[in-house]
């Protein structure tokens, strides 16, 4: 049975009605989002293998729409593997295969008839290292829309502007959209990648340690950006920085050696973890 974030914790027993109670677990300063909180990605006994090695083990979880969910855990615990499974980026690795089910909006992501190209259009991803194309800023943002058949210059200009504004980059680059994106700073490149992902209007944004290659100032900007996007997109962010997870997320998943150990509202997980392992991890007894 798939579990909601609350139910997956050991305090599940103390739970009353699902859904309606979700808000009480949110950190007080974080308001509930409108039309949010529906199961957006659902894992049922979902495992991921590299050859014989089970990197992610029988995960049951529901990611709630329009909230920010952080994934934390020590290095090598399967955070990236799980995240990349959601838009099937793991397909690039020949030895990688899955078991169980992973649903997106009620559709099986690994279903026989699922078109991974369409899926990726709806589930955007930003990677650990900024990876703009060696093209102009404009062409980077317009890449996705062009893929999906938009070629009208005016429309593209509109999309580029809107995406860059959403990614809080417009003011910095509006006068040099034709310059090569590789000339931007690392932080700007990463926000460009966010803008590029937003330009295809995805439902979900997957962020795999988006700030690990950035300096603190650029990191703060990205975090602000996530705050900005919260409520409009379902966001999953992998981070090994626990402060970051507590700052930006509504819910947190803690993975350890491929197992989803604890999944709870962020505040609860950090202040009152139910699992000893979680406690040890967030108190820094191991990393």
């Amino acid at each position, binding site marked *: 049975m798939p579990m909601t974030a609350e139910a997956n914790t050991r305090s599940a027993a103390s739970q009353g009605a699902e859904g309606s109670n979700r808000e009480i677990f949110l950190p007080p300063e974080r308001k509930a989002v409108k039309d949010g909180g529906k199961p957006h990605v659902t894992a049922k006994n979902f495992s991921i293998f590299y050859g014989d090695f089970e990197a992610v083990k029988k995960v049951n979880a529901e990611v709630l729409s329009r909230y920010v969910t952080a994934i934390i855990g020590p290095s090598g615990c399967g955070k990236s593997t799980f995240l990349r499974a959601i838009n099937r980026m793991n397909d690039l690795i020949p030895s990688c295969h899955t078991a169980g089910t992973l649903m997106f909006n009620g559709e099986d992501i690994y279903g026989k008839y699922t078109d991974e190209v369409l899926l990726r259009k709806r589930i955007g*991803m930003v990677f650990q290292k900024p990876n703009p194309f060696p093209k102009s800023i404009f062409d980077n943002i317009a890449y996705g829309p062009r893929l999906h058949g938009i070629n009208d210059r005016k429309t593209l200009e509109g999309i580029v502007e809107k995406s860059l504004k959403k990614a809080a980059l417009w003011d910095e680059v509006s006068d040099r959209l034709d310059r090569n994106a590789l000339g931007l700073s690392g932080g700007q490149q990463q926000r460009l990648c966010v803008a590029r992902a937003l330009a295809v209007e995805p439902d979900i944004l997957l962020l795999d340690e988006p700030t690990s290659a950035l300096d603190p100032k650029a990191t703060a900007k990205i975090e602000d950006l996530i705050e900005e996007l919260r409520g409009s997109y379902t966001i999953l962010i992998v981070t090994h920085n626990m402060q970051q997870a507590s700052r930006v997320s509504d819910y947190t998943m803690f993975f350890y050696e491929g197992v989803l150990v604890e999944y709870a509202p962020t505040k609860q997980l950090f202040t009152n973890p139910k699992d000893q392992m979680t406690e040890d991890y967030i108190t820094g007894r191991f990393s």
Partner: protein
Amino acid sequence: MNLGTRKILDRSFTAVGVTSIVLMALALLVVLVPIISGGLKALFFQGTIEHRQLVYNEFGRGDREELERQKEQSQEARRPVFAMLDAFDAELEGMEPAERREYRSQYNHVRDVLHDMLGPLPGDIEPLLLRFQYGNTRWEQAEESLHDLLYVTKWDYSNPNVMAEKYFTPRVDEFQGTALAPLFAYVETHLEEMLLPQPEFYWGFITDRSLDAHIFGGIWAEIQGTFYLAMGAMLFAFPLGVIAAIYFTEYAKDNFLTSMLRSANSTLAGVPSIVFGLFGLAFFINTVKVSESKSVLAGSLTLAIMVLPTIIRAAEEAILAVPKTYREASLGLGATKWRTIVTVILPAALPGIITGAIISLGRAAGETAPIIFTAAVSVGATIGLADVFTEPTPALSWNIYNLASEHEAANEIRHVQYGMVLSLISIVLLLNMSAILLRARISKKLKG
């Protein structure tokens, strides 16, 4: 290891390295200097009035009035020579048959040399071959002819234990007391007036067609042939090679067939080029019959097969060198695999692919063996673009060999051979230079 030994080792290694580089540079110099100096002689030389006349008559270039004036002037200087020949002819008529026979062969030789020098003499029948219609067009050839005229070459066989030695005696001795005797001194002193040498820059060597099997004229047919063959080869090999590389890197599964294909490709890269030549003849001409016999098309196909492995490998490496992150970014945005290849991977791999292609182009331009049986003829006219499917062509690489080893007047046209070598080297160098520049430009554009 202590510091002292380490320093000594470092220093000796530096010495060895520097020495080997210097040796290489010297070897290059030894090869390049004669080629460049020899090749430039095809373009820059002391040209005689005969050269200017030839260029005017055959290619319509030159100042007509100036030429007429010079012709008049040289004719003036030649008149005494012709007069002396006439006088000697008359003298021969009056001789006893035995005496006449004695002079005859010597006299014929004198006439031949003068013919070489000045062109047809009065009384000679109008020659058919162009090479006999003109005298020495180059001053250094005229000087050789002069030596030939002035001296008889003899061999000293007196010592049976050593090789015969060459020595010269003045030819004038043979004609002492005849009307021909003053001719030798006259020619020696008036040769310049008869031929009017002046420095020439014969750029037509590159752009003119060859005349009378390269005795005169330029090498345009060869340059064009080389161009056709190399470009033709690339026309087939480049798209095929890039497609194969895409297949190998993006689509091929890691199985037995793929590894077979890969090793076949590597093996092909090491096959001697003459084998490709024979293959081209057997396959493209005899089996597939792309043309009746040798043709540019058959040669291009053969060269294409030869350079294909290089192109595939270069393209493969270039594609593999494209950062994985580009691929992830593109696929993550919902691009199909093919779209990702075309819009992201190939553009990023382009510098590497182009480098490989241009190196291959240079190789296709320079190879001789593959075109011997499939495309090359030693003497041929320039062909039009429409003829490439049926006609063979001369080409630099093959004609360098041919002119140096098989031409009936190989010794007299050394400047043409060197000129061809220099042209070929320049073409290949130019291609490689443009590869480097193009690569740098694209890389810069990619880096922003």
